[in-house]
């Protein structure tokens, strides 16, 4: 009886060790993928009106894209065609890596310059939230959601 309990505990420990190893390896990939998208979005213009613009918009932030229209513009059907930061709003993709498939999606919205919370009015700050999931990283039976966030300022470009 005592030996059975010891054996079960040992088995549990071995299982936990293995799970931790796999989780560590996959979480490394999750961070890379999230950073990849954020770096990519940062390399694009802040807004549709600032793409190759000879001068800054007359009204800042009034001339920026309306909060309800953030997302890909007409014809921007895939990631390679995105040309500004908020085109990544609503984007979803399954990315295959050597660690398996990862589900990625992103959301872009304006944030309040003081609180950095989402706002439904235009501002000079936009925030991107990239959510990454893997079939093998679960919590409570559901895939665990890893959220990576980045706030971008129009003037800091």
């Amino acid at each position, binding site marked *: 009886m005592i*030996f059975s309990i*010891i*054996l079960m505990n*040992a088995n549990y*420990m*071995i299982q936990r*060790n*293995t799970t*931790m*190893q796999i989780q*560590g*390896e996959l979480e*490394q*990939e999750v961070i*890379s993928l999230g*950073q*990849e998208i954020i*770096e*990519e979005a*940062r*390399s694009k213009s802040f807004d549709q009106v600032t793409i190759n613009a000879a001068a800054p918009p007359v009204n800042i932030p009034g001339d920026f894209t309306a909060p309800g229209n953030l997302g890909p513009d007409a014809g921007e059907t*895939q*990631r*390679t065609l*995105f040309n500004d930061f908020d085109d990544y709003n609503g984007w979803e993709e399954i*990315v*295959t*890596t*050597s*660690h398996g498939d990862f589900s990625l999606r992103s959301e872009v919205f304006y944030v309040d310059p003081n609180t950095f919370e989402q706002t439904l009015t235009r501002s000079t700050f936009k925030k991107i939230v990239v959510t990454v999931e893997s079939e093998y990283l679960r919590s409570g039976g559901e895939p665990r959601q890893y959220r990576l966030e980045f706030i971008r300022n129009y003037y800091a470009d």
Partner: protein
Amino acid sequence: MNLGLITSYIIAALLLLSILAMNLNVQNSSAELTITQMTKNRLINITTMLNDDLPNMGYDVDKSSQESMGSILLDADDNRIEFYRNIQSDLTKDPDRVIWELLDESPPNANNLNVKTLIRVVIDGNTGVPDTTHIRSGVTHFELRYYNTVGSILTDNMPSPVTIGDVKQIHLRLELQADEKLYNRASSDGRYVRSVWEKRYTPPNLQFN
């Protein structure tokens, strides 16, 4: 000898064997966890350097010298990359050349013959003096892929040799293996614990090429 005594001997022997097997399994698991952690720490050390070097390529390289140099990237090979970067942030200084390359040679006294030497060379822009760092931390793969479009699918990389002026994104796959083999059974061949890291970089300065 009575039957009860024989049975108790057999049960005791089985128990002893089970305890030994359990002990061995726990020991193997702990060894694997420790080696994995060591491999990961080494990987993190290398990726910290890469995460500083690659995204910042072309940093503070002024346009006039960039034009005379032709491009920020000087070499874009499968396991070698060379680029300009002015890490001193001093415009009076010529940009340094940074090289990352996986050499096809194992470090001296390596237990794992899959391991190769990764080098990082910084060539001073003014003096031309190279500062070479030999990274002998278990690197087995340092694979680079190049893209002329931002955000294309992973397999859509540029064919080799790439036109370096067109490169917009760089994908890196780094694999490290442990020095020592792990044996689950005394008769097995054993295996090396490995850790793989991959990332696609979008260096902002390459977007203006």
